[in-house]
């Protein structure tokens, strides 16, 4: 299975939710389940045969789920809400506002850098 390598960085204090580590390098599968499930589906059993899993190329929405399931250390409600980042968290993809790149639907490429910045720490 082919994978893509990514660099993730945190700003604005968001790293506090991720073991206080400012940057991570990680690999994710290039093709992922459409439902953003990040753990392997359980093996089929006689009364529950394996359903064919719908797939898509890995996008930022999948990355957010991957981060929640594998990197986040505490208080997931401060990071994820309704399958996307919580309002007040900015995302830059290769130093460009993700709103210009299709937000969660942006399809990740090998070597992409994604930055998550919290603006929730007030004035």
């Amino acid at each position, binding site marked *: 299975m082919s994978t893509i390598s990514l660099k993730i960085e945190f*700003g*604005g*204090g968001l790293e*506090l939710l991720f073991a206080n580590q400012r940057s991570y390098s990680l690999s994710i599968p290039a093709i992922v389940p459409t439902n953003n499930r990040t753990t392997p589906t359980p093996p089929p059993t006689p009364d529950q045969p394996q359903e064919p899993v719908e797939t898509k190329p890995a996008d930022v929405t999948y990355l957010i789920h991957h981060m929640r399931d594998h990197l986040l250390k505490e208080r997931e409600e401060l990071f994820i809400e309704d399958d996307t980042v919580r*309002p*007040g968290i*900015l995302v*830059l993809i290769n*130093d*460009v*506002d993700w*709103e*210009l790149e299709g*937000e969660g639907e942006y399809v990740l490429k090998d070597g992409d850098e994604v*930055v998550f*910045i*919290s*603006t*929730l*720490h*007030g*004035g």
Partner: protein
Amino acid sequence: MSCGNPQTEQDALMIRRKKFDQARTCVKCKTNSGSIVVRYAVYCKECFFPLVASKFRRSLEPTINPITDGPRRRGLKASGNLLLGLSGGLGSTVLLDLVNRTYFKEPSTENGIEKPRGGKDHPRNGSVWAKTAVCYVETCSAFSGVRDKTEEIRAVVDKYDRFDFIPLRIEDAFDNAWWENIGGPPTQQEFGVDVTNEDLFLSTFATGETDSPVSCLKNYIASLPTQTAVPSAVQTLTRLLLLHTAMMTASSHLLLGTSLTSLSISLISSISQGGGFVVREEAQEEWTPRMSVDSNTTERKAGTVRTVRPLRDIGMKECGIWAWWNGLHIVGRERFPGGRQSIGALTKDFIIGLERDYPSTVSTIARTCAKLAPKEGADSICLICERPAQYGIQDWKARISIRSFEDLSSASYRPSHFPERIIKTSPTTPNPPRSPSLTPLLCYACHTTLTSRSIRGTTTNSSMIRRQSVPLPVWVNSRFDIDEKSNGEIWARTQMKGDQMKASIAEFLLNG
């Protein structure tokens, strides 16, 4: 047919539209590919920095000279020093950076922070304000499980090597040593307030009975009736500590890092907590200290402090990107523990969600509030928050509120047309001598903060004894005095007759 702003109109209809207009090219230079979307407009990285810097200057500079909005071609010269309030949050960290870049940095050091030649007291490095200090108020004593961030904040300020750092603690609001240190009149007697009664009767503490500033603070916080009241009270204490520090440092300006987003949050949250009367003060205000400063400690007699929020047209998103692209370290500011259901926290969630989905509505909130003006004029200054207050709030509350039997009986021994002010016990009162009431001297919002109970009932964590004698901040304490000749009755100090106290209260004090 409409003549309004089409962008705002569209948001008003709540039609979700694309996050940016037209192409991905920068709207400013029309050449570079865009890097950020700010309220539907696309900017490249190069054009983003001047955009934020000019919004900052446009908000701040009309307020620098003593006459606001006057001609500035002759240059900018403030009448006093500068004080910056730094919370460690995103807005104030960006503010500190913008002030440094705009007014202190030499042109040759455009990128990165470099030390000024000649040091922080060199005259070249302070043309607009002679001196600049940064004040941080540590609030960890008000909450359990919150770490002290003073040293982290000090490190942020020290990086600039040109600002004096003044660390305070929220409990200083109950500390006579702090009060006397900034030139406040010595406190002769400390007072407690009975928060179980809406009249907020005052009583004296016996000498030596009062606790340390931290336990006074904790007692004050524990006495508050709702979760919503806690952040409001802490905010008011912080604001007054900053204002008094501005006075002490002979500052004409106190700058706060309130962004457009936080301003909208505080406006809505303030209105929903009864602060509608001072909605304009939330955006910008002038405060005149009641005391005059000892001329030995400062060269400038205590004058008016102008509080300005130069980021009020800059959203949180722009602040976040500014901080990221400039490599600013955000120490962070925690949510008040247990305050998630407070009006402030709920408003914050609401506004931030709104800003993401309908980016123009948040600036509409701030603009609309700027146009609001209270119908009736202010006739006094609230003793706790020192903001304009309307006389007679207790009458109004009495008319609109659903009262308990207990409240009715306590209000029954004075005619409703005769509002109780700070008053010597009436000889006709059948009950034992009653103490003076703080209520007539407070604004609606502060009265609400101290007394308004939520539907879910009163707090159960504090004993009634404590709630009947809750300590008051030092600036409130110093407003009262004991009249030795009339059996220790509590009187408002003559100082209260200052210019700010308008006829109603002042007249009463003169005539007794």
